């Protein structure tokens, strides 16, 4: 008989390694597969440990959202896309912002990261939200974000007295009540304005050139110049499609959750029982993974889900 404690400890090591290692190679996967194939004890312990790990992620989703929602208790927390009072949206693809790498994080400053294939949404205390694309690292503090690597979509709650600044690859983007997109490659930042207005300052302290952008404008800032061209709305929309990777719910009614998934999926979820529709849910789900939300409905609420005329009907 295999010692259950020892098997659990080994399963946990696998999970932690797989989830936190900077890279997970084919060889790593092969070793894990070999271990899992050794015995059913190993397999079951791994499933159990993996489930435990996922549950702590749920706690994370809950906690990281609480502080923001508490600031404004009467505001219903909702999916970012629905919030109307938002002033600006920025998306940035960036190389490492080398100037800021050496900075020591301040107590109020947090580093967030996504691994390859991961999307994550951050809610800031001021009501702004940041969606991080795959393989991204950024530091966020009050009204300031340093994009160190990757790509992020910013939805900034505008405050004229406290402009929101985004730093990337040695340049600065200042929100002026806007929706805009920023991309950067080494020594080069591309800013495309979706709606409203924003200013791009070359150089992180605004000492260099500046360009004020209108919707559809695309600014390319290099070390010593800024040029402005135009892009069509569909072209911009396509570049931002990754944003729909994840849906984040914080005490959102299941009916609204279904509506949100239905925006992104051909197979629609139907909930006709109002009692079921009022159940609330917390968590982050891939927008294209209806299976995940259906499983949650099954597991957490004990609901039934069945296929019917190409729709998924959730009921008690």
């Amino acid at each position: 008989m295999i010692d259950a404690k020892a098997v659990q400890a080994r399963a946990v090591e696998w999970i932690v390694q797989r989830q936190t290692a900077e890279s997970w190679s084919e060889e790593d996967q092969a070793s894990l597969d070999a271990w899992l194939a050794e015995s059913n004890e190993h397999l079951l312990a791994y499933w159990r440990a993996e489930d435990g790990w996922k549950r702590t992620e749920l706690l994370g989703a809950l906690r990281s959202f609480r502080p923001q929602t508490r600031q404004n208790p009467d505001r219903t927390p909702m999916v970012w896309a629905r919030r109307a009072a938002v002033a600006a949206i920025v998306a940035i693809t960036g190389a490492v912002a080398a100037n800021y790498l050496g900075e020591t994080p301040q107590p109020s400053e947090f580093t967030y990261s996504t691994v390859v294939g991961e999307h994550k949404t951050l809610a800031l205390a001021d009501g702004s939200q940041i969606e991080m694309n795959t393989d991204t690292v950024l530091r966020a503090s009050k009204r300031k974000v340093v994009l160190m690597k990757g790509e992020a979509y910013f939805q900034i709650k505008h405050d004229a007295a406290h402009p929101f600044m985004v730093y990337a690859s040695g340049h600065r983007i200042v929100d002026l009540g806007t929706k805009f997109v920023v991309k950067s490659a080494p020594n080069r930042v591309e800013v495309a304005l979706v709606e409203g207005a924003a200013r791009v300052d070359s150089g992180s302290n605004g000492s260099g050139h500046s360009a004020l952008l209108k919707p559809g404008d695309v600014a390319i800032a290099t070390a010593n110049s800024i040029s402005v061209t135009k892009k069509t709305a569909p072209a911009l929309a396509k570049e931002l499609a990754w944003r729909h990777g994840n849906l984040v719910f914080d005490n959102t009614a299941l009916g609204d959750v279904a509506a949100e998934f239905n925006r992104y999926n051909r197979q629609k979820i139907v909930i006709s029982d109002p009692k079921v529709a009022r159940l609330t849910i917390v968590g982050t789900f891939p927008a294209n993974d209806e299976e995940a939300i259906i499983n949650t409905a099954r597991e957490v609420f004990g609901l039934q889900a069945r296929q019917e005329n190409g729709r998924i009907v959730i009921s008690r």
Partner: protein
Amino acid sequence: MVDTPETSRERDDLRPPGAATVMDDLKAWFVSEVLPLEQALMQFLQSNWRRAEDIADMRQDIYLRLFEAAKREIPHPTRPFLFTVARNILIDRYRRERIIPIEGVADLESIAVATPEPGPDRRAIARDELRHLQSALDRLPPRCREAIVLRQVEGLTRKEIAQRMGISEKTVNRHLCDAMNLLLDMQHQEGGAA
């Protein structure tokens, strides 16, 4: 990145036809049907078996037997089947150790009563689970808790956690493993009671 899906597809091809799907079904069943019953199962075992250090092995035995049975046919509903298996394992143990389980017998008779089906309000249960998880987190040793919070709540990488905590990545790894082991052990304790 491009070759990753290719390779995993090749790996799938090596399996007998349908095997992957069966395994996925078994996993989905185990995670969504069996694991949520773990707390009830552990309570049952703890109230019927005095030696706490045996319980983890007994749970493993029970899951194993359940899994073997599920490979032939996934039992439905899971709960009564799980507790029947648990009862048989207990009886085996009593016999092997020549224990006359005076209280145990009574408890075995009342299994059905002791483990009622969950009521209709699963939402309360889900909330309990979150509260339970939070209190479990609060009871971790401080360094373990810090590591797991930085990872799962703040989303820091292992390297960043190491920098923040002023320790090596290897030590971060150990804290994360310790935290997960403790959380898994606490998963079956009631209402956050130690």
